[in-house]
């Protein structure tokens, strides 16, 4: 089922949580709502679920206007960050809840309920835990129960609010992969909220990047990572070095090198901000053309990619670089070593003034 957010705004008193948001989610998509806290992503999810009413605008499911419908009537699966399990009920009863509260006529027989619950529990690999209570489970197991419970009502739409936020890194990774499989297998249309860019980029078909009550950019993970549309998008997605610089004659000096400024968005010269990803920074042992002298300040060589912090000799600005292990060995870097750095690529945005 496709979901359409049509010009939705939400105000709490004088605070604007969402400002004229438009978004279409296609059937079968797994979409991430990504943004810093306070960006409006959770509010948007809650409006889609029917937990909040928009101040203006409409929410459509499969072309049908559901703006006035309550949470209960929308029949969406909702998974909460802190699981929100019924702690006085066993795992089995938690999952069965959605079937048991149906009107008597639509309620499945006890035998069917039992079969459905057990098949859902085996889907989330928790069938041996049916008789346990939520307090006897780990965080990851609880979240899987919550997921099975949400799926028990056979929703076409699954909404997840920071579903892995309260879990540790290893469990999070496992659950992510597993959510992806479930989503594909059950042909759901899913939206999840996260502030973790890695999670959004890894898991989602499309990423909706939100900031300050508006959508900054929508695109596939690769699109938003490789071509951030705004300076916010650049800073939020992945690590990035930010340099203040000045545009002169259509060119800008970044890290010593001169980089041509894109024609659009710039009216002549002026202040600009250059963004360079750490892996787009080259390090040389000796002086090179258009290199800028710097000193290695910190080395983190554990892992496949070495992280290096450097500072420029002239103004002392810090920057971050990432190079492969092989290159690290070739350069034989150590802390305090003088080097030359150069930006392979940079993205220039006009500084303040709104030219994007």
């Amino acid at each position, binding site marked *: 089922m496709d979901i359409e957010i049509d010009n939705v705004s939400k105000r709490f008193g004088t605070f604007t949580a969402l400002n004229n948001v438009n978004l279409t989610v296609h059937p079968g998509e797994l979409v991430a709502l990504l943004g810093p806290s306070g960006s409006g992503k959770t509010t948007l999810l809650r409006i889609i679920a029917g937990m909040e009413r928009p101040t203006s605008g409409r929410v459509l499911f499969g072309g049908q206007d559901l703006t006035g419908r309550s949470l*209960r009537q929308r029949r969406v699966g*909702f998974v909460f960050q802190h699981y929100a399990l*019924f*702690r006085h009920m066993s795992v089995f009863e938690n999952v069965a809840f959605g079937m048991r*509260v149906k009107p008597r006529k639509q309620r499945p027989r006890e035998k069917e309920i039992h079969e459905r619950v057990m098949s859902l529990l085996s889907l989330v690999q928790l069938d041996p835990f049916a008789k346990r209570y939520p307090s006897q489970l780990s965080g990851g197991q609880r979240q899987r129960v919550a997921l099975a419970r949400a799926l028990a*009502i056979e929703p076409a739409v699954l909404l997840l609010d920071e579903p892995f936020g309260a879990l540790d890194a290893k469990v999070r990774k496992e659950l992510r992969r597993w959510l992806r499989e479930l989503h594909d297998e059950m042909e759901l249309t899913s939206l999840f909220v996260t502030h973790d860019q890695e999670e959004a980029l890894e898991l989602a078909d499309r990423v909706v990047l939100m900031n300050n009550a508006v959508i900054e950019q929508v695109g596939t993970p690769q699109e938003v990572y490789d071509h951030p549309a705004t300076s916010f998008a650049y800073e939020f997605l992945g690590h990035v070095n930010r340099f203040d610089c000045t545009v002169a004659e259509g060119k800008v000096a970044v890290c010593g090198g001169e980089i041509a400024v894109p024609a659009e968005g710039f009216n002549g010269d002026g202040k600009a901000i250059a963004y360079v990803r750490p892996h787009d920074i080259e390090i040389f042992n000796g002086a090179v053309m258009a290199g800028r002298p710097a000193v290695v300040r910190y080395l983190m060589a554990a892992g496949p990619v070495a992280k290096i912090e450097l500072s420029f000799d002239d103004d002392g600005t810090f920057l971050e670089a990432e190079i492969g292990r092989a290159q690290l060995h070739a350069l034989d870097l150590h802390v305090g070593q003088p080097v030359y750095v150069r930006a392979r690529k940079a993205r220039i945005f006009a500084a303040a003034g709104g030219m994007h």
Partner: protein
Amino acid sequence: MTTAATTLAVKPTTRGSLRKETILPGFGLTLGLTLFYLSLVVLLPLAALIAKASGMGFTGFIEAAFTPRALAAYRLSFGTAIVAAAIVSVVGLIIAWVLVRYQFPGKRLLDACVDLPFALPTAVAGIALAAIYAQNGWLGAPLAQLGIQIAFTPVGIIVALMFEGIPFVVRTVEPVLQDLDKEVEEAAASLGAGRIQTLLKVIVPTILPAILTGFALAFARGLGEYGSVIFIAGNLPMVSEIAPLLIIIKLEQFDYAGATAIATVVLLAGFIMLFVINWLQRWNKRRGT
């Protein structure tokens, strides 16, 4: 936890194996004070009561404790205390709900009113209730026309006990309701549960331990309540004479043995009931949290 506690303990204690090592200081002192205080104020008088009652001999005790008049008084005391506590549990839950869930003008005033039975001398409450529910009182007169008599009947006793019991339920349920996760209700609604279903299947089971505690407190209070009841009860032997009053009557007749016999029965029965409620609560807690 245990390992952390043991490694953190500064030095191993050699005094007595009963004492577990703990990093919280002052265990010995505070437990000593607690036991001393409880012994002096609670256990000693109770022991004296039992000793006095046991001095009567078994048959003497049975004869004094289970006269028809005493039996009627027990029935009345326990019956009215249970009924009042049950009613108050429901009403108190609603009051606590209103106080926790909604914002409205006069909320603080209502909040203060709940505690009034704590502050008011019980005799004052009794006189006020008797005046209202007497046959010529504000509520008593119209009710009398309908053929309902409240003052000087067991119903009057229940009314008085309800008055005294309300704050116990409200104040025990309130904090638990406050802690109730809004998300759990949203989860229930997203799964298709209506408001009533959410209330009965999700909210009430979660706060049931608190309701049981409130019920136990209100019941215990009702069992021992004297001041507010005697004015409205009418105190007819076999009809509206409560056990505490019967004890007083025995004492006034210098029948100390009879008074202690009745007191012992009330004490034991009350203790058993509270114990059962406590056990129910533990059982309920084991399932949840």
